[in-house]
Structure formats: C-alpha cells, structure tokens
C-alpha cells in the first residue's frame, strides 16, 4: 500500500551527470538525471548492473570514488527549511553534513566494519565525531535503542569484533550505524544482496520496522524487483545512466509504459500464475564508453522505430507523478495483468 507521503521534496537533483575517467575512455555513468525525493517516502532506484544506480547513490552524498567526478548538475537538500547544495560546501561542512542529515548503508556490508575494533567502539566513534559533548551513557542509550530496532542483542553485539558476527548481523549493525545521528535520509545500496534468503527476510522485516517507526526518507538502490515490490512507495527505473521511468510502485509494476520497464516486469516469475512464460531481455547493456545514438535501449527494444535510433527521448508525463522517457509509449499501450 502506497503511503500518502507529504509531497515536500527533501532532495532535488538537477541535471546531474557523473563520469569516470578510465584508460578505455570516459564512462558516462550518470547522464542528466533529474529527480525529486519526497519527505518520508521510500524510493527505489532499480536497474541492471552498470546502469549507473550505485554511482547516483554515491553522488547524492558527494562520495563518488576516484576516478569518477561530477561533471555537471547539483544535488540540493532541503533541510530545516534551508537549501543546502552539498557539492558547493567546503569539505569540513560536507563532513559534518554527511551522516547527520543523510547517511548510507554501503553494498556488501561484510567488509564495512573495521576488523580490529569492537562494534561499540565503531558506533561510539561515529557519535563522538559529530558531537563531542555527548556523554558515554547517552551514546550507549541511543545505540541500545537502535540495535533493538534492528533486532540485535546489544550486550552480545557491542562487545564483539566484526568477525564474530554473521553476515546478517553485520548488515544490521551497518543499518543501525546509518541511523545513529537521526538522519532525515538514508540511502541503502543493495542491502540484501550477498545474504542468504532467510537472512534477507530478516533484514526486510527490520527495514519495514524502521519505515513504520521512524518515517525516515529511504532511498534504495537495487536490482532486486521483489524487494521493491515489498517496500517501495515510488520506483525510478534506470538504464544506461538515465531514469527512463519514474512513478508510484503500482503504476510501475502494473502499468509500465517504457519497454524496458515492461520487459523487467515480465522477467519476474510470479508464484500465482502457472502458465506465464519467462521473457529474458535479449542483448546486453550498452558499452558506457561508446553508447549508441538516440535512445540507449533501442538495440534491445522490440518496438524501436527510426526516431528511436536517432533522437534520445525526453521525459513525458503519463499521469500525475508518472514520468517516462520513450517516444512510443502512447502507441504501445503496454500493461501487465493485475493479479
């Protein structure tokens, strides 16, 4: 059920482009992305590997790793009524902004913890780094509450070293770590990949718990569509560095207008329908250094026309809050059967 989120944007991304300088050439990982993230919502950015979704996630916190850099565009946060352009802040201000207002749970949390420090030390480090005046007892209280929110036993976990915890436990520690300073926004990059299915289920429960209790704005970056189905309010579909479709989760899943989105929905097997065939998407993602002209999906699109091969489509409104970037969406009238 899509919660009626307040339509107040907390992040506004304008015309963002991120590139990587590699020996092979310039990889245009993120191309002219425009996006608004609304307060309290759970937004999912989905796409294949190499679609640029992780880079977009990093860019939101201005943490794009070398050899990447932000070519143009801006990421503006609306915090406490003020507008903050993260990239324009001096490094020290950025450091303070990060984690306090927006934090991130990185992909493969298995190596995100320092092996030689206890879990408590690493959590306490984070709190101390942002506010020297917090007492040990206060910090402990906070940590304890967060750990119970992610369903971890504080006494057992805090004393331990990372190698003594299971993968799922470490992931939950990272989630708690991201919530330590009560950020308005949390970005989660593939939070459940690299975990077995049972652990995944646990993590999903934890995330649902957080969503209902804290109402934090959450941005998920993943290729796992089933996760989106469970948690998302809105979904943005990325392909070759651009958002090709954006809308309410029901719209995306049942009335996808972009051929790529449509094909994605078709690749997810449904337990309920026995006689549905699986349609993998033929071809492979484009070479991000030498991309084909026009719409980047056209080589794999079963409906591509001449215009698709020459001109890159602009965003168009399908309905309120539903955007698509395709020349032919009106003619195609795509729809997925509802259960």
């Amino acid at each position, binding site marked *: 059920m899509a919660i009626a989120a307040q339509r107040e944007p907390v992040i506004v991304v304008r015309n963002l482009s991120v590139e990587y300088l590699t020996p092979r050439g310039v990889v245009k990982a993120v191309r002219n992305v425009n996006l608004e993230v609304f307060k309290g919502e759970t937004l999912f950015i989905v796409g294949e590997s190499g679609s640029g979704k992780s880079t977009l996630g990093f860019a939101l916190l201005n*943490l794009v790793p070398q050899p990447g850099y932000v070519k143009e565009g801006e990421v503006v946060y609306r915090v406490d009524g003020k507008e903050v352009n993260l990239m324009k802040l001096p490094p020290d201000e950025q450091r303070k902004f990060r984690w306090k207002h927006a*934090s991130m749970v990185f992909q493969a949390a298995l190596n995100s913890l320092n092996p030689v420090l*206890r879990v408590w030390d690493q959590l306490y*480090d*984070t709190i101390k780094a942002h506010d020297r005046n917090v007492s040990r007892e206060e910090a402990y209280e906070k940590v304890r509450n967060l750990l119970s929110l992610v369903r971890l036993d504080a006494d057992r976990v805090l004393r331990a070293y990372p190698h003594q915890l299971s993968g799922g436990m470490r992931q939950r520690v990272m989630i708690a770590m991201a919530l330590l300073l009560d950020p308005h926004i949390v970005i989660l990059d593939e939070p459940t990949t690299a975990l077995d299915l049972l652990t995944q289920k646990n993590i999903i429960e934890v995330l649902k718990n957080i969503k209902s209790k804290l109402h934090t704005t959450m941005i998920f970056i993943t290729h796992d569509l089933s996760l989106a189905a469970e948690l998302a309010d809105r979904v943005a579909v990325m392909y070759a560095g651009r958002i090709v479709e954006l809308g309410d989760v029901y719209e995306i899943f049942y009335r996808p207008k972009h051929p790529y989105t449509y094909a994605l929905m078709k690749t997810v097997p449904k337990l309920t329908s026995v006689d549905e065939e699986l349609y993998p998407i033929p071809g492979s993602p484009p070479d991000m250094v030498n991309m084909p002209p026009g719409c980047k999906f056209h080589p794999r699109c079963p409906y591509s026309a001449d215009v698709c091969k020459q001109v890159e489509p602009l965003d168009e409104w399908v309905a309120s809050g539903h955007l698509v970037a395709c020349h032919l969406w009106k003619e195609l009238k795509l729809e997925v059967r509802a259960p």
Partner: protein
Amino acid sequence: MVRKMSIQRYLSKVYRNFVVRKVIRGIGIIFATSTLTFFIIRLMPSNPIEIFINQMMSAYGMSYQDAKALALALFTIDLDKPLHEQYIEYLVNLLQGNIGRSIAISPGTPVMEVVSTFLPWTLFSVSVSLLASFALGVTLGMIAAYRRGGIFDKVISAVAAVTSAIPGYLIGILIIVFIGVQFGLINYMRGAYSAGLKPGFTPEFIADVFLHLAAPFATYVLSTFGGWMLSMKASTLSVLGEDYVTVARAKGLPEGRIRTQYVGRNAILPLFTSLTISLGFIFGGSVLIENVFVYRGVGRLLWSSINARDYTVMQAVFLIITISVIVSNIIADLLYGLIDPRIRVGG
C-alpha cells in the same frame, strides 16, 4: 556498560591456546638445534673433540687417557660412554645450564659465564636498533602511501630500495670509512664502551655506551628500515582501498582517527608475520656487524671462538643465538595476538 577484557582474562584465555602452541614449537626447535650441534661436535669427520685430543697429545705430549679426561672436563661429553648415553648426558647438562668450559679464550672458565658477559650487549644493541628501525620504516611507509606518487614517495622509496640492497656489514664499513676516519670519530666506533672506563650505572658510562652504540645502531637501522618501509607502504595502500575506510570517511570520522585506528592498525598486521623472519636475520647479522665495530656481543664472541678453535664456546654461542631468535619470535607472536583480535578471540 561495556567492559573491555582485562589483561588477566586475556592472558589466561590465550595461555590455553595460542602461546602454549608457540612455546612448544620453540622448545622443539631448541631441542632440534641442540641435537644438531651435538652431532656436529661429535660426529663430523673432523669433529672438534678429536681434533682437541690430537692437539693435546701432539702439542703437549699428553697421553690419550689424559687428553680424553681433559676433553670430558671441557666438553661435558664422556667419550667412553656409548653414543646414546653421551647424548642424554649432554641434554641433561644442557638443561642445567652446564655447557662445558672454555678451551682457549678463557681456559677453564664455565662457558655460561663467558657468554653471559657478551650476551647482554647483543640483546641491547639489537633490540634498540630493531625497535628504531621498525618504527622509522613503518612511519615512512605510511607517509609514502598517503602521498603516493609525490616527491616524498619517490625519493624515500628509491633510498629504501638502495639501502636494503647493500649488505648491512658493508654499510657499517662505509660508515667507518666516511664518517669514522674522516671526522676522527673512529674511536667511538670500536667496542661497546671506551677502554679503561669502569662499567657501572654512572651517567658518564651510560653516555659512553650510547656513543659507542651510535655507529652499529646506524648500520642496523640503515640496512633494515628500507624493508619495513616498502612493506608498510604496500600494506597501507591496500588498506586504503578497503570498504571500511571508505565508510569511515563517509561517516565523517576525523582523519587522524582514521589514520591510526582504521588504517594504521590494519596495515601493520602483515608486517608482524615478517617480523619473525627478520629477527633471525638481524641476530645473524650481528655476527657480522659486531665484528666490523669490534662490539662486545655474542657475534664478536662467535668470531673469536672460531678463530681460537674454542669449540665449547662456539657451540654455546650458536645455541644462544638460536634461542634468542626463538624467544623473540614468541614475543613477536604474542604482540601480534594483542593487536589482531581475530587471532586472540575465536570467531
């Protein structure tokens, strides 16, 4: 509240497992070395005992019996008894600290006594130099990693590569030639302390000792810091690419804390395993460097005893040097357990 494990609990936990294993291994190697020395002394074609007896007989006209008795007194090995009994007696004596008497250097004096006047100097010079070299190398390596590609990195890496290629004792000779002779400091480069100065805990003696330590110290450090530096640089570079460092930066932790607790502590871990190999090398190197500087350590004693054909002292020094290496290895392993919780606390 969270309580860190006290030193006592740590020690008792570790004792049951990690240290015990290392100590047993160490004892095993000491045992093997003693056996090796025994057989070298006893069974080699030109073994020292027979040479000694022949010498006594030809040079001093002793009878075979008398020479044998003298050999027994000096070597603590009774040639009349069957081999396995000799071996057991040898081991028993060894455990009691009885390793015979000096033949030539200080005839009749228990070897233990002779060695104990030389050993402290070696332990002193080697440990001070090792600590300094390690500290210097590790610090430089980390700086070089953080400033990779810069002028500091290029220069210090080149210097490290060159100095670690030159054999240490040759560096010592160069120091004597270019600094000792040129600046007339040669007197401070011979011996552990000035001749004629009465040993004791007086300030002037201690100052003198450190002046005499300077040249050998410089030699040790110059020849070994390069290896540490290059290893630490590689290790730090690898750690800097790890996820937990990226996360630490993303969390806004102060760079100083990241450098010590997140990068430094993790980067230094692999170096400890190479520490054990270096210890053997640095003790072995003392045989050469102490001779260059005529320093009063066991290395010099080994040389003197070999020249004087004092086989009892020679065998003892060899054993002592090996034991020193083993003991320092155990200490290094203990230290490693302290720093790396993955070893100390099971997963």
